[in-house]
């Protein structure tokens, strides 16, 4: 290498010069000194020569980083606080990004995902998509804009496995379902559009219920007592990435929709693949034309929902996009607060380090060199923080997936991958720049010589302190916005969980049994036995359905109505309240019970009692019950009709049973035994308290509340640390002044008041700014709230006072410290 002989070369040079000098008549020693003088500083020359070949700045950054590590190790407390702050802020942001990346940003894994569209009829009555399968069949046959079209609908089924008869979450599919999804089966194959009585199993179900035995492929198994051939098993990597209103993406098996179901009324969801170069609007227009013909050819259609089309990816995330963006904003706020806090700590330390920096400048370090060294220190801190943050993020993602497995589509796929790492890296650098800029600027503007002269009492006084106060006020303002958001969501949650007196969902146990409609005698006997279990107050049956041909008086149009065919014990078990008329009995015929909303819808202001309706046949209204939210917490109670279970005829896949008991967990074994005793082929499934079921109905909201709550708490803690830091620092700065005041006779109370007023001035400014800003921000989250206005004054007042109180507590420590300053020590301390 070129540098190898540099030392020899230089020695040779000097020897030659020495020899020349001797030849000119100098004494040997004198000659050598002259040569050296002429050569200049040997070690500097060597260094500069080496520097020619090196990337100097890299070398210096490495030196700076090592220096930074030494500095940090000297003050471990300081380093720990900063690293912990950054780790939490960066970790939470990494977790949120990871969720957003997998839910919103990553494309759907199916081929031609960009051409997949959601094509459905939206029913305003049910507030969900509700496409009739015969309509779908007509679209698929006639439309020219689509490469493929598929429909699917969830269907519980009982399947005979090696573990006996088990309940499975099935999906009935029609049309080109498998063509659109294009999975590569782990075993066997998927079925074609015209096959019947076949089933494809999920990898998980296959492993669990068939012990992963490949022999099952091609064999027949009993599904709802009919033979189905197992044709294939999906790979474990298979992802169900279609919108599922029933909020579960865990499918156990896939069946074809039976041919006669495609011909009669049944609801499903439709997904279609556009032909290349066909845009979504003309494709929708084509379907609209077809749909008009379909409606004309069947004039007695009960309803006409709105037809719409939307890119699949957009549809999949539409429900959670707003919530995730609110979380992203919350994450950004936490990061800002953390950056402000770190900047504050660094500013405090920068004043303590001014002497060191002034000395470095005096021995020849340029301003840029010093600023670069400070920035490298910041980067070192940030990268340690980011590394720790990744651990926080791993934990947070695992926690999120655990609390809300089905709340958010594709959430389960969230991991820390290279994209997420890149995000964290970029955000970390941006954070380091953000919190480093203040301290660097204060250095840039400062007069280094004055600092060196000033000696140990170096302080850039009010400018620096005022800057830090502004930072703290900003921090409090940001924290207020977050806390208000979290507070509004908490209040929504509280509003949702307010139940009327007499409704105690935690004491209601619900489960399902496979209940074919013919088994009325079986169910009656089951209820009789269940009610005789000690501890059971009442037990009842309910089958819920939609009836599409409901007729009201004074109105010719058919209506979709909800019918709950239930036994008298069911009303008692749930805790319904009768407002007017009487309850239904087992022996009632052509009698119907309505809830308030239903009565209002059908009869308006007229007294419904004794009126006639055609639901499902000609019936007389015998009673009105109060509206009750026992299905979904974050929506008002739906309009509903109740008929006696004995009047209900059709076959249903499963029957709901509700039991009222003071201690649900304790009687579950007795219930299982009772069911097995009566019919060994039967088993209870979906066993949970109504409380749990209701909680699941608001799982996405719980998920949001949990995250926003964590963010808000972190923000609160950081803001309090910020207030404490700046006040404590200000007191330390003013030790001498306060000492003088005390020596001149200032009272303890006066000193405390002075410090508290100083701190609370900053805090109140921040709180006021924050509250005004929060009015703007909370409006963005209006649709995440329930029964709470985004400008709810109570929440704002509560958050404001909470923060004012915590700020006051943060001032208390430094204030007391100021009051106990001993003037003698304070003055001698100089």
């Amino acid at each position, binding site marked *: 290498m*070129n*540098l190898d*002989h*540099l030392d*020899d*070369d*230089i020695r*040779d*040079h000097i020897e*030659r*010069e020495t020899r*020349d000098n001797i030849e000119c008549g100098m004494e040997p020693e004198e000659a050598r000194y002259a040569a050296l003088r*002429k*050569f*200049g*500083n*040997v070690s*500097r*020359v*060597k260094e*500069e*020569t080496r*520097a*020619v*070949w090196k990337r100097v700045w890299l070398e210096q950054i490495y030196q700076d980083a090592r220096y930074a590590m030494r500095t940090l190790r000297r003050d471990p407390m300081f380093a720990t606080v900063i690293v912990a702050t950054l780790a939490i802020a960066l970790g939470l942001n990494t977790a949120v990004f990871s969720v957003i990346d997998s839910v919103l940003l990553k494309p759907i894994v199916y081929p031609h995902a960009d051409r997949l569209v959601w094509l459905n009829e939206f029913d305003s009555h049910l507030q969900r998509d509700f496409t009739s399968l015969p309509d779908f069949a007509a679209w698929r046959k006639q439309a020219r804009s689509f490469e493929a079209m598929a429909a699917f609908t969830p269907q519980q089924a009982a399947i005979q496995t090696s573990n006996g008869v088990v309940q499975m979450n099935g999906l009935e599919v029609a049309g080109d379902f498998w063509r659109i999804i294009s999975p590569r089966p782990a075993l066997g194959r998927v079925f074609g559009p015209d096959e019947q009585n076949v089933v494809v199993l999920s990898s998980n179900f296959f492993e669990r219920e068939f012990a992963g035995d490949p022999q099952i492929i091609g064999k027949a198994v009993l599904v709802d007592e009919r033979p189905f051939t197992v044709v294939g098993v999906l790979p474990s990597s298979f992802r169900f990435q279609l919108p599922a209103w029933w909020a579960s993406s865990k499918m156990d098996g896939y069946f074809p929709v039976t041919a006669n179901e495609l011909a009669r009324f049944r609801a499903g969801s439709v997904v279609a693949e556009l032909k290349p170069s066909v845009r979504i609007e003309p494709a929708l227009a084509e379907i609209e034309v077809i749909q008009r013909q379909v409606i004309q050819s069947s004039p007695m259609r009960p309803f006409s929902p709105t037809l719409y089309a939307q890119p699949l990816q957009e549809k999949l995330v539409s429900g959670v996009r707003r919530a995730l963006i609110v979380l992203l904003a919350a994450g950004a706020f936490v990061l800002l607060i953390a950056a402000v806090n770190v900047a504050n700590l660094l500013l405090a330390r920068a004043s303590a380090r001014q002497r060191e920096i002034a000395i470095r400048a005096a021995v020849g370090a340029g301003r840029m060199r010093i600023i670069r060294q400070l920035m490298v220190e910041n980067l070192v801190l940030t990268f340690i923080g980011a590394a720790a943050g990744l651990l926080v993020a791993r934990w947070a993602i695992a926690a999120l997936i655990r609390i809300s497995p089905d709340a958010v589509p594709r959430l389960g796929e969230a991991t820390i991958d290279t994209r997420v790492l890149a995000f964290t890296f970029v955000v970390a650098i941006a954070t380091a720049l953000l919190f480093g800029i203040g301290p660097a600027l204060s250095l840039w503007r400062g007069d280094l010589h004055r600092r060196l002269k000033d000696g140990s009492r170096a302080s850039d006084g009010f400018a620096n302190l005022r800057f830090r106060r502004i930072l703290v006020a900003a921090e409090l303002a940001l924290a207020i916005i977050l806390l208000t958001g979290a507070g509004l969501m908490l209040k929504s949650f509280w509003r949702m969980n307010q139940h009327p007196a007499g409704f105690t969902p935690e004491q209601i146990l619900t489960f399902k049994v496979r209940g074919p409609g013919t088994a009325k005698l079986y169910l009656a006997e089951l209820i009789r036995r269940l009610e005789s279990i000690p501890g059971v107050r009442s037990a009842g049956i309910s089958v819920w359905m939609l009836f599409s041909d409901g007729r009201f008086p004074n109105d010719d149009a058919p209506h979709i109505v909800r019918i709950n065919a239930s036994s008298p014990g069911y009303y008692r078990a749930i805790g319904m309240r009768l407002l007017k008329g009487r309850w239904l009995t087992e022996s009632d015929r052509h009698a119907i019970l309505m809830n308030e909303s239903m009565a209002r819808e059908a009869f308006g202001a007229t007294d419904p009692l004794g009126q006639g309706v055609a639901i499902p046949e000609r019936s007389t209204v015998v009673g009105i019950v109060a509206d009750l939210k026992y299905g979904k917490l974050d929506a008002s109670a739906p309009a509903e009709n109740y008929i006696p279970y004995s009047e209900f005829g059709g076959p249903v896949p499963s029957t709901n049973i509700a039991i009222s008991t003071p201690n649900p967990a304790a009687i579950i074994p007795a219930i299982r035994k009772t069911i097995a005793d009566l019919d060994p082929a039967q088993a209870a499934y979906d066993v949970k308290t109504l409380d749990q079921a209701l909680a699941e109905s608001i799982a996405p909201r719980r998920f949001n509340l949990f995250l926003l709550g964590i963010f808000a708490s972190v923000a609160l803690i950081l803001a309090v640390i910020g207030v404490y830091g700046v006040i404590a620092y200000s007191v330390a700065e003013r030790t001498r002044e306060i000492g003088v005041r005390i020596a001149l006779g200032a009272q303890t109370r006066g000193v405390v008041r002075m410090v508290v007023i100083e701190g609370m001035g900053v805090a109140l400014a921040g709180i006021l700014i924050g509250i005004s800003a929060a009015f703007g921000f909370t409006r963005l989250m209006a649709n995440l709230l329930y029964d709470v206005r985004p400008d709810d004054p109570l929440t704002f007042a509560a958050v404001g006072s909470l923060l004012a109180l915590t700020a006051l507590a943060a001032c208390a420590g430094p204030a007391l410290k100021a009051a106990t300053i001993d003037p003698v020590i304070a003055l001698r301390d100089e």
Partner: protein
Amino acid sequence: MRRDERIELLQGTLDLLILRTLLFGPAHGHAIAKAIQHNSDYVLQVEEGSLYPALHRLMKRGWVSVEEGPSENNRKAKYYRLTAKGRKQLGSETTKWEKLAGAIARVLKPAEVKR
């Protein structure tokens, strides 16, 4: 010669002088320094040490190569040699320098130019 009359070298000029010196053939560091002083009638004062970073800069750019060679008293010495690339560079640098020197001269002595 009085010390005052010696001229400190401008940054970058040293590179040009080294290239020019090596045009006469390969030389070791000490010889280059001596040659620069001698050829400038001792007006140009090189702090001899600064020769080495400059030589290495030129090597890095590929204008100068280095080789081992015998020296008078049987010791090995490093000889620096102008490369073809360096020769070309010397040409363009010299032109540039002459332009600069001429321009400065015209600014300093405008009358002479007019005459």
